[in-house]
């Protein structure tokens, strides 16, 4: 399978699959942004698209939303995740939250956003739970909570999904540094849990989680699906505006969209630079704080607040999924009632066939992309093992690059480029576009377990006369069944959750569960959203469940593989 000639090429091929579309997309964005679109008879360069963009009255507000929501969500999510780990790591409450991590992570952003909306709208579950007994409302109050003009709900929607992600990253970093003893020593010196952890462990951990934090920042600044569902409409955030412009049949609008995409890229770059500089300032202040010897008097209070905030995030996602489920079976549901007046299957009968078609498309794309990502990842790692060709020697940056460049900056350009060269939009290009986002996550999920494998086992197998291919297929991969399946589940859930790549590169003709669900946002049919949101969550959650169950069943008689 892995021929001697093919294997050494795989790292280069992987880089091409990951970075090629990003570079091509940026190229395809820059030219039309300066009025150069030969296919439409437009020859640049001109600054007209930028003049049009800056002539839009909503721009300052859209930019503020993008920056404010992105920065706010990242700072708050990082604070919650770090303080939660500081105050509670090793405790029973923390282990409970840890067990919720995988399901919380696999819930697609769009489904979590819909769930949150159904919880906190004036006619949502929380309001129903408190009405009329506590609030006195017998009809939903006239409040703008979801899609509020400041983007606070949108920020909340991002926070509840990014806290589990950052928590996972922090936990992975903790495993690599000798952190437990540092925290124990700090406590023995009289420091509170939180202060001791922040002073001794956090600096080391942050050095390792820096890139994922940047990814969260870039993502939160340029997210589209969560912004469509929870963000304001007039004006929308910059990303949503870009997507609107790009779906306009008027070519001048597309040029303006390209200009807006360049602006988006610039904003993210500036935000990352500002963040990096703030890191240095925080480091100086933190160093002073360490030298001050303050032991942390209010640590217990901070710990409790962090636990409350973390619990709230988990609750928002999980209760959101439950309320999606309730709506999907709801008949008539009058206001202050906590549960629907009647439950029925009619919604599922009505929307079920549509969701099944979308599920088929979703599964086909996700399955193909994940398989390709796995082959490339395993190929890269095996090439590193056999030939010393290391992808990581060129820096983790390359892996994170496709996640750092805002989607709204290169996907519109990729679409324009494809239309220019007459390539057909549709399923195959969508698969390649998904690969850009799936590959880094699959690689990051699988690289550590693959490298942690005891190479002496490989020596033994080779000494027994097994060729390298046989060692890989018969020994190494079977032993790594659990991480292989986890990486598969990660890949599938990333692909299932892709909205913008499917929408733009599919030219609106590729209907996955996510594009269909987000398209329902403007209509506000809660029963349809319930059905689609639940199916979307299931499509991401089922593989994670299988990744836990399958190794337990296959290796039920192999104690040596039950853990780790």
């Amino acid at each position, binding site marked *: 399978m892995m021929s001697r000639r093919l294997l050494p090429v795989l790292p280069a091929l992987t880089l091409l699959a990951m970075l090629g579309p990003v570079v091509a997309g940026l190229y395809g964005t820059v030219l039309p942004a300066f009025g150069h679109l030969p296919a439409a008879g437009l020859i640049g360069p001109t600054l007209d698209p930028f003049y049009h963009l800056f002539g839009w009255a909503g721009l300052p507000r859209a930019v503020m939303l993008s920056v404010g929501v992105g920065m706010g969500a990242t700072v708050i999510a990082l604070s919650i995740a770090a303080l939660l780990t500081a105050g509670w790591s090793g405790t029973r409450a923390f282990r409970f939250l840890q067990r919720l991590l995988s399901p919380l992570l696999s819930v697609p952003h769009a489904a979590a956003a819909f769930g949150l909306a159904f919880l906190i709208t004036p006619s949502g579950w929380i309001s129903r739970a408190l009405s009329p007994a506590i609030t006195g409302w017998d009809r939903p109050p006239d409040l703008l909570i979801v899609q509020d003009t400041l983007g606070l709900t949108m920020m909340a929607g991002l926070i509840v999904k990014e806290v589990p992600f950052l928590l996972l990253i922090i936990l992975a970093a903790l495993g690599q540094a000798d952190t437990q003893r540092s925290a124990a020593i700090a406590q023995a010196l009289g420091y509170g849990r939180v202060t001791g952890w922040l002073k001794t462990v956090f600096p080391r951990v942050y050095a390792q989680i820096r890139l994922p934090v940047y990814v969260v920042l870039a993502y939160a600044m340029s997210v589209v699906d969560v912004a469509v569902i929870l963000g304001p409409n007039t004006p929308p955030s910059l990303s949503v505006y870009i997507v609107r412009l790009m779906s306009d049949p008027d070519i001048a609008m597309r040029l303006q969209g390209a200009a807006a995409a360049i602006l988006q890229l610039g904003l993210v770059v500036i935000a990352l630079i500002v963040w990096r500089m703030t890191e240095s300032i925080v480091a100086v202040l933190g160093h002073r704080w360490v030298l001050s010897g303050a032991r942390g008097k209010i640590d217990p209070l901070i710990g409790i607040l962090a636990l409350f905030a973390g619990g709230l995030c988990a609750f928002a996602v999980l209760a959101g999924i439950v309320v999606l489920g309730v709506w999907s079976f709801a008949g008539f549901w009058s206001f202050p009632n906590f549960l629907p007046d009647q439950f029925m299957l009619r919604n599922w009968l009505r929307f079920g066939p549509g969701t099944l078609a979308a599920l088929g498309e979703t599964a086909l794309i996700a399955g193909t992309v994940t398989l390709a990502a796995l082959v490339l990842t395993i190929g890269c790692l095996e090439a590193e093992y056999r030939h010393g060709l290391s992808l990581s020697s060129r820096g983790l940056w390359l892996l994170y690059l496709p996640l750092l460049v805002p989607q709204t900056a290169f996907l519109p350009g990729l679409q324009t480029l494809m239309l220019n060269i007459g390539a057909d939009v549709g399923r195959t290009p969508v698969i390649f576009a998904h690969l850009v986002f799936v590959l880094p996550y699959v690689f990051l999920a699988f690289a550590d377990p693959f490298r942690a494998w005891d190479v002496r086992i490989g020596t033994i197998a080779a*000494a027994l006369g097994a060729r390298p291919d046989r060692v890989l297929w018969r020994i190494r991969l079977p032993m790594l069944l659990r991480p292989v399946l986890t990486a598969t589940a990660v890949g599938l859930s990333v692909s299932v959750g892709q909205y913008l790549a499917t929408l733009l590169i599919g030219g609106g003709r590729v209907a996955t569960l996510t594009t269909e669900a987000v398209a329902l946002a403007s209509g506000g049919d809660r029963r349809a959203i319930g059905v689609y949101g639940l199916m979307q969550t299931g499509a991401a959650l089922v593989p994670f469940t299988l990744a836990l169950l399958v190794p337990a069943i296959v290796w039920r008689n192999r104690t040596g593989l039950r853990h780790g």
Partner: protein
Amino acid sequence: MDKGLTLGNVEILQNGEPLLCLTQTIKPGEVLSIMGPSGVGKSTLLSFITGTLAADFTARGTVLLNGDDITFTPAYQRRIGILFQDDLLFPHLSVGANLAFGLRAGGSKTSRLTRIHEALSEVGLDGFADRDPATLSGGQKARVALMRMLLSEPRALLLDEPFSRLDAALRGQVRTLVFARAKARALPVVMVTHDAEDAAAASGHIVTLAPVT
């Protein structure tokens, strides 16, 4: 033709710095014991002989096995068996499947099964073929690892502190077993050890490596 394992002017460098150099011939059935402090490169020498030297090491010199120069032969074609201090049984395979992985390819299914059962009974483990390796005791695992290696019909045997994880009572037993089997098959043996008792029991030549200054 020279029977046995010959290390000719073997010199190993770590990141360009010389680590050790050695010239030795081990005749069939003889044991060469290599001693010396940790970090002196004992295990590295073994990985050079098996053909699995890590990337930050380079080596010069030749390895001859029964007169053939195998210095550049791929690891899986050298037929040099190795045992580590951990049994390193493949945890996803049953005891029998571990042995089948080691047994040289060829022969009918029944004859292969017979050889596996014979190998198990040779070390007093009759009926263990379907067991999960993780359920075996330390001494049982060591015996399975030995038989797995011997079934691959190696032409030389390397031992990387193979007895150091076993408790004192078991240690002598397993040691006697390994040396007896190696002698019966007339294998040249290179053993790396910290333990003077191991080296004495081997009753062969002893080389003590010292750090290069």
